[in-house]
């Protein structure tokens, strides 16, 4: 919202990653080429989908973006600032301005810590004083639809959807420019998925966050992504505006991927939703889980 179009753009160029596994002293080591040169751009305030079957390299890409894994080649920069280059040093994860939300909301939260400490962890590492930490934690918890009082509770007192909200709050409190969500809703119930997806859309509108949304679920892509990139076997198969790619897939693999999704909504429904954001959401809801789900959305967004 505040950012001009080219102010904050994440550019990935020709990212490569090979995993080498040793098979003991006498056998040859086996190599897995997880990423074979992946390039893409993410614009400010955009929700960028990365879709593909498991093993296509999308999670490896996510881990490289946030710095949990080192790429073997290629480069990554945000608005001209280099995060890594093949021949240069890597920027440590926290300085990248990219935060991550993980798939499993149960393994994502240390069961020994209170929610307030979980959300404040990044600030505590950075040495932010206690009063400011508490203030920002309270703000962020409200932003994701929880209450400031929740910071005194433990993670096990929350449901899966609420836990994912805590994880998102933990990422947002770091004020990232980009948020990587790796299968962030695939462990949740369909109705809860909707609530989290709506919250992500809302966050994008309110704080202008750019989101890289990694999923294997075409209907999720359809629902929230502005642009999408389809990956297969470590390569980009196709990319473009989400609607164009999903409605008129040009590559055979994308066509197969879309055809494999079971659907309740008819093609006519999807065509209807082509033009604008408004009707698009409610119609998309049908492909996520039918009418039940739609009523859930219109009722409330709170968990």
């Amino acid at each position, binding site marked *: 919202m505040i950012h001009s179009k080219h102010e904050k753009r994440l550019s990935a160029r020709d990212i490569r990653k090979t995993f080498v596994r040793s098979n003991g002293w006498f056998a040859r080591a086996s190599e897995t080429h997880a990423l074979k040169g992946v390039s893409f751009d993410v614009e400010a305030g955009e929700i960028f989908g990365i879709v593909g079957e498991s093993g296509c390299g999308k999670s490896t890409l996510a881990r490289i973006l946030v710095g*949990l894994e080192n790429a073997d080649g290629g480069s990554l920069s945000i608005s001209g600032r280099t995060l890594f280059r093949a021949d240069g040093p890597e920027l*440590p994860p926290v300085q990248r301005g990219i*935060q991550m939300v*993980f798939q499993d909301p*149960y393994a*994502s939260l*240390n069961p020994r810590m209170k929610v307030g400490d979980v959300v404040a962890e990044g600030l505590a590492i950075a040495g932010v004083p206690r009063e400011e930490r508490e203030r920002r934690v309270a703000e962020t918890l409200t932003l994701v639809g929880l209450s400031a009082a929740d910071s005194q509770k433990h993670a096990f007192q929350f449901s899966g959807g609420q836990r994912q909200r805590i994880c998102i709050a933990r990422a947002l409190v770091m004020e990232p420019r980009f948020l990587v969500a790796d299968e962030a809703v695939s462990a949740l119930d369909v109705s809860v998925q909707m609530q989290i997806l709506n919250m992500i859309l809302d966050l994008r509108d309110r704080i202008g966050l750019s989101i890289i949304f990694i999923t294997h679920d075409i209907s999720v892509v359809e629902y929230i992504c502005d642009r999408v990139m389809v990956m297969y076997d470590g390569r980009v198969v196709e990319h473009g505006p989400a609607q164009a790619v999903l409605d008129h897939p040009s590559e055979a693999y994308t066509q197969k991927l879309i055809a494999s999704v079971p659907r309740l909504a008819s093609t006519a429904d999807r065509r209807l939703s082509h033009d604008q954001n408004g009707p698009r959401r409610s119609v998309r809801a049908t492909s996520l889980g039918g009418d039940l789900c739609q009523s859930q959305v219109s009722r409330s967004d709170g968990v």
Partner: protein
Amino acid sequence: MKLDLLNLKFLLGASMLSFVLFLALFGSWLTPFDPNRQNLLASLLPPLTDGHILGTDHLGRDILARIISGAKVSLAIAASVVLISGVVGVLVGALSGYLRGTPDLITQKVVESFWAFPPILLAIAILAFFGQSLANVILALTIQRWIPYSRITRAQAMVLRSLAYVEASKVMGGGLGWIMRRHILPNLMASAVIVATFSMATAILAEASLSFLGLGVPPQIATWGGMLAEGRSYITRAWWLAVMPGLGIFITVLALNLLGDWLRDQFDPKKNLNLT
């Protein structure tokens, strides 16, 4: 987590252990006798004669007084051994499991080479080489005892390192020290405490074995193992010389094993299904 305090194992173990601890700490006020005072005229007195509740040994020393002073030595040695080996073992295990790669490879080779020696042999070798002293007994017992801690904690750290909350911490800038303190070490405490309880029992036995072999602390200090060794030659004439310190070892080790068993039950995920 709720601890089941009305458990028979806990009640027996805790009461036996507190009895031993009480004797070790305050026992010297309960008996008028000096543990090292010899009185050849009163040697080999059976229990309950002339005020010697547990009798006297071949030099006329009061056995109860010696057991009490031996308890202090045994428990102090065992506690220091458990503490030192626990800290070393947990740190080594946590770091090697979390870091993997070369540090892990090196520590695993070290662990394997230490583990290749029969424990008592290694302890004997160390004491024979460095000489008998309290510090050397502790060293000899510690040298292998950190290994069980490091094995268990390494396995757990390997699981923890790939958990999403540890990775999230890395993305937020958490360094090695932070992640160790915040996420790894607190999660290893439960198993470390269980290992410690059992390890305390075996440390007491090992110290007694070394003293029995005459390789423990210097002979002028009364220890349970040393008393057992001295009593061995009189076992047919005066059974109490060997049986009394043996009972001391037995009660302490049994109490610790019961407590360790109980603790393990308490931390068993199958028992406490609401672990999180």
